[in-house]
């Protein structure tokens, strides 16, 4: 089934233009992967929601029986996520300006059914990861892994027994190695979609808890 792409026309205007990551090939590949999976979650969190295109999109798939929360370290992006949610008549989208899932970890341990992350994945010098402006949308440090790696250690705690974690990555991030790393913390993963977009080899990875026979 095909779900409509959320409208994000406000991204080309102030105050968002140049300050918020515009939906790009990675965003669209992420949407393609998500619409293939049917699940019945109660709590869904997107980390680094940026424009809000992905969280608005998945709310169309999962419907009003799910509570949606989005985080971003960039305050302008957080406001943009709210605007995109409103524009696309999303039932409820809670947005929090925070680093990854800080502030949500304690209470949501073992309770999150879907975690989504299209991280800053571009290989850059480590020192480029520091700000919370537009550079935070791409700067990934060594192997482009520095930001996503920090989330990897938290995901197994957050996920509910049948929970799913979706991740965008590029070839330079070594997706196969990510799958191996996650295996050691009890998550089994696979590449569910890939696409070549210009110079980027994009991958969508999906993980679940190994003992869940869902």
């Amino acid at each position, binding site marked *: 089934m095909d779900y409509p792409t959320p409208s994000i026309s406000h991204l080309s205007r102030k105050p968002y233009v140049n300050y918020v990551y515009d939906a790009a090939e990675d965003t669209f590949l992420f949407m393609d992967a998500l619409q293939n999976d049917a699940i019945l979650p109660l709590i869904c969190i997107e980390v680094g929601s940026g424009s809000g295109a992905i969280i608005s999109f998945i709310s169309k798939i999962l419907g009003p*029986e799910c509570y949606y*929360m989005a985080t971003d370290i960039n*305050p302008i992006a957080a406001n943009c996520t709210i605007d995109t949610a409103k524009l696309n008549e999303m039932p409820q989208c809670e947005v929090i300006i925070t680093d990854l899932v800080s502030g949500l970890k304690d209470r949501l341990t073992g309770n999150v059914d879907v975690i989504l992350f299209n991280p800053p994945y571009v290989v850059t010098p480590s020192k480029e990861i520091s700000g919370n402006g537009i550079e935070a949308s791409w700067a990934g440090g060594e192997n482009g892994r520095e930001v996503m790696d920090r989330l990897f250690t938290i995901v197994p705690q957050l996920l509910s027994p049948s929970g799913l974690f979706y991740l965008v990555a590029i070839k330079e991030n070594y997706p196969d190695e990510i799958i191996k790393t996650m295996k050691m913390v009890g998550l089994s993963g696979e590449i569910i979609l890939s696409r070549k977009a210009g110079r980027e080899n994009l991958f969508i990875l999906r993980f679940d808890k190994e003992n869940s026979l869902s």
Partner: protein
Amino acid sequence: MRLLTHNMLTSHVKGAESGYPLILEAAEVILRNVDFNPEFIKRMLSKVNWDVLYQTAKAIGHLNDIPEQLQPNVENDEEFLRKAHHVLLEVEVKEGHLICPTSKKKFQISNGIPNMLLGEESSS
């Protein structure tokens, strides 16, 4: 920020013994109309810290008659579920602050978005 989100948030100020619950100061509250979905409320109740919900709703003056204690067998009590629905989802804090209960650090809520950044990110 809805009270359901407040219910899930913890302050992560380093060294603070306990960051939960955050004290909520509401400068501007708006009431929204959200479609009542009894199944959603029933499933969500098991995740909610009821005591914190009650105290917070009371503190900001939006108790809406919810009981101090969560009663057993509320699944079929539509009146109760509607009240819980209102307090969890329809009361939205637009402007205000969240305050860490131990360190007293203030986090601003602006345009309904709490800013939990400590200004020294990089740790997780």
